[in-house]
């Protein structure tokens, strides 16, 4: 029993890490294709059919590129910063159920595709994702480059803005369900579309969605790597796989947050049938597509505009939402 459990956990961890590392690469392909479609271009076309092998080409390039560590950087911190971003993104996945329970074919061994059903699930995911901030922050500060440092400062200002919104917007659904576990969230909404929390908590859903854009650093809050500086913010001094780790962390975070949003607000995998599970993947893809769509449609905002939005508009809204939810639950 003990050994079966350990083996099962290790297999689950490996599957999650491998699948989402690969998805991060495929995510870049879809991003380029979607952006190209919206800008009336073709996007990657040359490598393989429809440019599908572009992902492999990019991967080979990243892996074989020389890992340059410039003189003047603080070496240990510079080296570990991208690892922090990627590692925390994957650590957060430990409390996310990716698929309903299923039995292994030809046996009666039941597998629950969540690495650990913590009783503080949502809180754990948020706290581990919060540590992900240290990647850009330490990377920017250790780079010995003014642009990287300014980018790290912008990253910190984003962080202190969105963190409050994420927490407060999730409080109202938490109060309704009465549990931190994503499995309990799913069970609460398993009856059907009408039971989705998004109908009860539309404000919380939109607030969390906006905060998710800031958390993953996507446009319109793509301030960490300010695009019109033409360089890559905190990643300016990075090359090869260390830069790749930052990218993998960013895309994995997008997928994991899409899963969290689908599970908390959009009914998750429903009753646990295969159809429900495919529905979950569909919802996740739609949310991911929305990330890309927004990037094509909106310009970036300034850091002070982001802080104004978060502290003066979204935070009061979130608190009013919590107070109203509390009154409704009480009376």
């Amino acid at each position, binding site marked *: 029993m003990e050994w079966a459990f350990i083996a099962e956990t290790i297999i689950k961890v490996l599957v999650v890490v491998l699948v989402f590392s690969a998805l991060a690469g495929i995510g870049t392909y879809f991003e380029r294709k979607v952006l190209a479609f919206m800008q009336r271009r073709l996007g990657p076309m040359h490598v393989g059919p429809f440019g599908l092998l572009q992902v492999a080409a990019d991967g080979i390039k990243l892996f074989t590129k020389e890992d340059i560590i410039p003189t*003047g*950087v*603080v070496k*240990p*911190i510079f080296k*570990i910063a991208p690892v922090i971003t990627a590692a925390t993104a994957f650590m957060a996945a430990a409390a996310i159920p990716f698929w309903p329970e299923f039995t292994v074919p030809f046996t009666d061994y039941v597998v629950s595709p969540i690495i650990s059903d*913590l*009783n*503080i699930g949502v*809180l*754990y995911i*948020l*706290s*581990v994702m*919060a*540590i992900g*901030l*240290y990647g850009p*922050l*330490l990377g920017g*500060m*250790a780079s*010995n480059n003014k642009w990287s*440092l300014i980018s*790290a*400062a912008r990253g*910190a*200002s984003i*962080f*202190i803005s969105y*963190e409050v919104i994420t*927490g407060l917007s999730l409080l109202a659904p938490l109060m309704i369900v009465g*549990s*931190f576990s994503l499995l309990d969230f799913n069970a609460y909404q398993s009856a059907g579309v009408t039971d989705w929390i998004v109908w009860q908590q539309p404000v919380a859903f939109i607030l969390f969605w906006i905060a998710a854009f800031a958390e993953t650093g996507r446009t319109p809050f793509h301030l960490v790597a300010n695009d019109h500086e033409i360089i890559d913010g905190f990643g300016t001094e990075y090359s090869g796989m260390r830069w790749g780790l930052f990218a993998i962390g960013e895309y994995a975070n997008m997928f994991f947050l899409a899963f969290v949003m689908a599970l908390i607000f959009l009914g998750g995998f429903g009753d646990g049938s295969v159809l429900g599970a495919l529905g979950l993947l569909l919802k996740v893809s739609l949310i991911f597509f929305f990330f890309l769509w927004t990037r094509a449609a909106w310009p970036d905002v*300034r850091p*002070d505009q982001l802080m104004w939005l978060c502290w003066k508009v979204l935070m009061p809204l979130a608190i009013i939402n919590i107070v109203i939810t509390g009154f409704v639950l009480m009376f």
Partner: protein
Amino acid sequence: MEAIAFYTFSFLTIAMFWIAVMSNQALYALSATAAGMIFISAFFFLLGADFLGALQIIVYTGAIMAIYAFGMMFFDTTRVVKERHRPPFLVMGLSILSAVLIVFIVSAPIISENIVAHHPVIEGIDNPQAIGVVLFTKYLIPFELAAVMLLVAMIAGIILAGKKMDRSLTLMRDEEIEIAQELQDSKRVSV
């Protein structure tokens, strides 16, 4: 299993804070403190206090250390800080020794009895719920007091920081900023 985890994390925590104290490289000290704070949360998880563990990460690593990092950006963190004095090892050794002694003196009588939790975790309910039960019954008044004090601190913070909130430097033209600066300087001289 638990013992291995406990000793590993105690070693890591002590090592991290040792680096934070002894290093004269500001960035090492900052990262080591953040890592130490995360490793401390492992003890909460080991004791079954998952909720407190997660809060430890969110509050200390997520919020407080981020603010520190914000402050650190005003220094050149890639340089080594020149400390003029050499660490007085005799004083350090003696103070560590006395601290350990005090811990022994205070904890010796407790260890002889069996340690019993004042408010043992209630079986059958989740860890966050257990915290809520204790907070809103036994510790209601300290909890509310802390809430009021935090509210006072927040209002004070807004008043102290928000003196010129209606004026945005990014929306002003350069000449306007200069005029405002001169006005301020002349006021300072006259006072």
